[in-house]
């Protein structure tokens, strides 16, 4: 891999993208074999992996829009990374097609006419939870994401070669409309794809819960991607310990936010003690799901909290990158914990397809990301705040 540090351009992207694509395609072929042997398990694993990579993309969209909305300077060095993640997000629609074609019946029991016929609650919900409207909604989410991702990315690339100062303002304007639609689409996507796997159950805070995980995912991705770039001699002087410290602070803050939202969701259901709500947590407290839930509490909140509370660990890159990788892993566990107990009610049941679908979608995601990222300057070279961002210091 070669890098021209004068124009911030990767001149030779190396074989990373191809390796990643190879792993992705191979893993998807293996997953297809899995589909032929056990279609149910395939779609359960597939939904977890799909939701994991989509939430990472959505986190990227939120990070980019928040950057524009607050006119931040510290995060300008990370903007191109988060923009590229956002740019890849709408392409994940191709991975929704298998769910659209066959997965709905494997994943969502509200899609079976005979189940609805004997279930009054699902009859009442069928105006919203039906196959056609489900697909229309998903297409709509991806269209909205496509519009904002493309708009923000195109404007940003335009800024690289233009002296037009109004581009910053235009990105801000798109971000303000985009932020509102982001909040709505991430909530409803979470309701549709994840919450409706158990269609009797409902939680109004569920969208916020998924958002908390998404933002953690992009923060960890930024730490890991920056670390990867620096390992290849890219942006070694530009991304400093001060930037990592800020990502660490946000990680720490959103670890608490995640726990706060998860706690709020649990707490209200625990207090009210209504059977149709508590059943969801009961499934997650039965058999081997109980240690899994405890693992989630400690691994996703307690341990990262104790480690990241210290300033020294946020400023120590090897600690921070380890924590980032750990939290990203815990984000996967979180999604797994949301989806799987509905299908395996008596205990954790790992499958090799968990891994292959994850690597399949992930390999292609990372490969597309790298192709896009290495084709353009790695930072928004003409952004008026870029120099200030390089010299950013924590007070």
């Amino acid at each position, binding site marked *: 891999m070669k890098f021209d540090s004068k124009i911030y351009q990767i001149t030779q992207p190396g074989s990373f993208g191809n390796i990643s694509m190879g792993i992705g395609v191979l893993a998807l072929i293996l997953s297809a074999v899995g589909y032929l042997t056990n279609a149910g398990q395939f779609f359960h694993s597939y939904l977890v992996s799909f939701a994991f990579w989509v939430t990472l993309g959505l986190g990227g969209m939120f990070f980019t829009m928040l950057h524009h909305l607050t006119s931040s300077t510290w995060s300008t060095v990370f903007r191109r990374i988060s923009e590229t993640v956002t740019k890849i997000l709408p392409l994940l629609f191709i991975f929704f097609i298998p769910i659209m074609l066959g997965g709905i019946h494997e994943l969502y029991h509200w899609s079976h006419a005979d189940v609805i016929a004997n279930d009054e609650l699902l009859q009442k919900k069928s105006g919203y939870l039906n196959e056609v409207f489900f697909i229309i909604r998903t297409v709509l989410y991806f269209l909205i994401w496509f519009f904002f991702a493309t708009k923000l990315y195109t404007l940003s690339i335009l800024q690289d070669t233009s002296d037009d100062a109004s581009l910053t303002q235009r990105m801000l304007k798109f971000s303000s409309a985009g932020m509102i639609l982001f909040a709505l689409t991430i909530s409803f996507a979470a309701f549709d794809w994840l919450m409706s796997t158990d269609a009797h159950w409902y939680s109004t805070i569920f969208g916020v819960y998924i958002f908390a995980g998404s933002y953690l995912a992009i923060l960890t991705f930024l730490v890991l991607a920056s670390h990867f770039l620096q390992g290849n001699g890219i942006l070694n002087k530009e991304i400093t310990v001060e930037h990592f410290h800020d990502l660490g602070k946000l990680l720490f803050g959103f670890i608490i936010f995640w726990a706060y939202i998860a706690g709020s969701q649990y*707490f209200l259901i*625990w*207090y009210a003690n209504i059977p149709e709500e508590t059943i969801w947590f009961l499934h997650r407290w039965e058999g081997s799901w109980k240690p899994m839930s405890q693992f989630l509490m400690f691994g996703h909140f307690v341990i990262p909290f104790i480690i990241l509370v210290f300033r020294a660990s946020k400023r120590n890159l090897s600690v921070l990158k380890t924590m980032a990788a750990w939290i990203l892993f815990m984000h996967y566990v979180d999604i797994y914990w949301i989806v799987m107990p509905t299908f395996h009610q008596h205990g954790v049941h790992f499958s090799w397809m968990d891994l292959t679908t994850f690597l399949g979608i992930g390999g292609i995601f990372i490969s597309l990301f790298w192709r896009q990222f290495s084709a353009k300057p790695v930072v928004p070279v003409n952004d008026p705040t870029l120099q200030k961002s390089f010299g950013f*210091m924590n007070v």
Partner: protein
Amino acid sequence: MKKPLGVLAEFSSSATLMYAAENLRDNGYKKFDCHSPFPIHGMDAAMGMKRSHLGFIIAFFAILGGLIGFGLQSWSHSIAYPIIISGKPYFAWQSYIIITFELFVLFAAFAAVFGMFKLNRLPMFHHPVFYSDRFSPKVTNDGFYVSIEANDPKFEPDSTADFLKSIGGSNVEILEEDA
């Protein structure tokens, strides 16, 4: 008989003030302070200041607050006056979390504010720099000052004043009061 309390020197800009602070730090002065109309980035490092211990004070009181909150609820709900509320067990720890969290935050906030006062030696009703006629009107407007206190181990009125002049200070005053 006048008793010296410290020395005050005026500087022309934030840059010269920073330069003076670095010089004082490198020459072993400990009890000195810089006064400016606005905060100056990097001044803490230039003055050789260590990180404040406030974080540890806050952590201690936050944990104490959390323990008090959790302890009081557990004791009163499950030992002192056990009572069943909406079918929950006597020791319903889930319901204690909110108050525990709130007391954790409350104690942390109080520890932060009052700990900051204590570490800053506030409230302080008087300081020798106010004996200077030039200091008060200028320091909130366009003046940059260094003050060195008499209890600094390296303090000696005349030589300290000369040193401040040598690093660019003007209007150097020895602050005194009647003994």
